[in-house]
């Protein structure tokens, strides 16, 4: 992927009008994605953008890429099928915290160990917005919602630590408190040659708590680069990630300085090696000949 100046952010914006509530953090995320894609410069038709179900999962439709708004929790398996079917595509997956860490929570570990060159953006708002404000896997313990009238009894999932622990090669966090930083982070994630994860703190204006809105987030925000964090240091990244929920660190937690080979790359190599001198598929039944 080489950066060209042929495309501008607006070239990735579709004519569909977002269904999101006014003020939703996802408006910033889609802007961040437009900007990152423009910086990368791949034409929209070479991008496949997959999502699950949820407010945030509407996002592919707001871009001019090939979009797939699929079923709840399953953006990652579909994205992997796309990548294996056509590794030349730029494959993005996105969804909410419920989609990624609850109903689809089992998939991310496996995508990480396969290290396919897919960028996964989670819009983390700690609530189920589309179904009107139920507990989500990242809701704080004690959070009162319509399904936890007396406060939730369970600890939240820590998406950053989860992904770091499974060995993801690129882990970052962004938020609408810094759109420029968000765009740069998404761009860097897409450019990373392997699986990349970006958790975006994207406030829910309708069901979110006051402290989770932009002003509240600004108050707990710290820029990792400014703090002098070394993104090659995985243990330091895990240390910082433990503060998820108290502090909002922005930027790159971890970038593997020596990116591992990708599954899709290895598949290509295998295809190239094994297709040499292979008999045509029309002769496949010859495999069964017993003389």
């Amino acid at each position, binding site marked *: 992927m080489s950066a060209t100046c042929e495309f501008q952010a607006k070239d990735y914006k579709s004519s569909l009008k977002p269904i999101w509530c006014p*003020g939703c953090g996802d408006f910033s995320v889609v802007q961040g994605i437009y900007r990152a894609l423009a910086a990368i410069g791949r034409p929209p038709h070479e991008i496949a953008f997959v999502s699950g179900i949820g407010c945030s999962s509407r996002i592919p439709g707001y871009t001019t890429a090939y979009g797939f708004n699929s079923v709840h929790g399953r953006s990652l398996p579909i994205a992997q099928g796309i990548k294996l079917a056509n590794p030349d595509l730029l494959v993005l997956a996105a969804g909410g915290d419920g989609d990624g860490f609850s109903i689809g929570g089992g998939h991310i570990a496996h995508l990480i160990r396969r290290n396919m060159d897919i960028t996964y953006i989670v819009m983390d708002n700690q609530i189920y917005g589309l179904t009107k404000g139920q507990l989500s896997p990242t809701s704080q313990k004690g959070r009162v919602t319509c399904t936890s009238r007396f406060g939730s009894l369970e600890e939240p999932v820590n998406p950053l630590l989860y992904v770091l622990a499974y060995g993801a090669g690129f882990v970052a966090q962004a938020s609408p408190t810094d759109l420029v930083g968000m765009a740069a982070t998404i761009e860097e994630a897409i450019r990373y040659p392997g699986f990349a994860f970006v958790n975006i703190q994207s406030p829910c204006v309708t069901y979110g708590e006051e402290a989770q809105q*932009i002003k509240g987030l600004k108050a707990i925000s710290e820029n990792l680069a400014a703090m002098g964090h070394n993104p090659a240091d995985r243990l330091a990244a895990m240390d910082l990630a433990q503060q998820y929920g108290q502090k909002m660190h922005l930027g790159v937690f971890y970038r593997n300085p020596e990116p591992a080979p990708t599954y899709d790359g290895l598949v290509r190599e295998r295809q190239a090696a094994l297709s040499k001198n292979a008999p045509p598929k029309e002769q496949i039944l010859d495999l069964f000949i017993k003389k």
Partner: protein
Amino acid sequence: MATRGIDFQTLSLMDALDLAILIEDEAQERYEDFAAQMDQHRTPAAARFFRLMAFNESKHGEELSARRAELFGEAPRAVTREMIYDIEAPDFDEVRAFMTPRQAMEAALASEVKAHSFFLAAIPVLKDAGVKALFEELRDEEVYHRELVTEELAKLPPDSAVSDEDFVDEPAPQ
């Protein structure tokens, strides 16, 4: 409100003008986004106001662009959009469903105040006299905008003691 990679001590007049144009562009874009969100949620009065703000920002941007062209012609731009964030543009969550025109104006006012503080804070650091003059002009411009919005606000009847939120439907589960 943030900048990235700008050294105010060595900022040239051309860069300062370009920066100011980008700040206006960003604000214009944000207001247009807000107006579209208000259209989408059938809140035309707030949409009209945000569109007016977008128009003002674009007009100011055009004035600055004309000056830049006169002084520096087609000289390539050294500053980028990536260097600024939310100087004059309101935060993403300043727009809310079913805003009253008053709430919309208050959001805009807060942004003008924000922009004013940005220029105010930058001025003491500046070395170049031309840049300093430009930033002072921009600072005063924000004061002027603030007054305009405040005047408009004063013309509005006060919002009812009951919140509009008390009348609108619950969000619809999907």
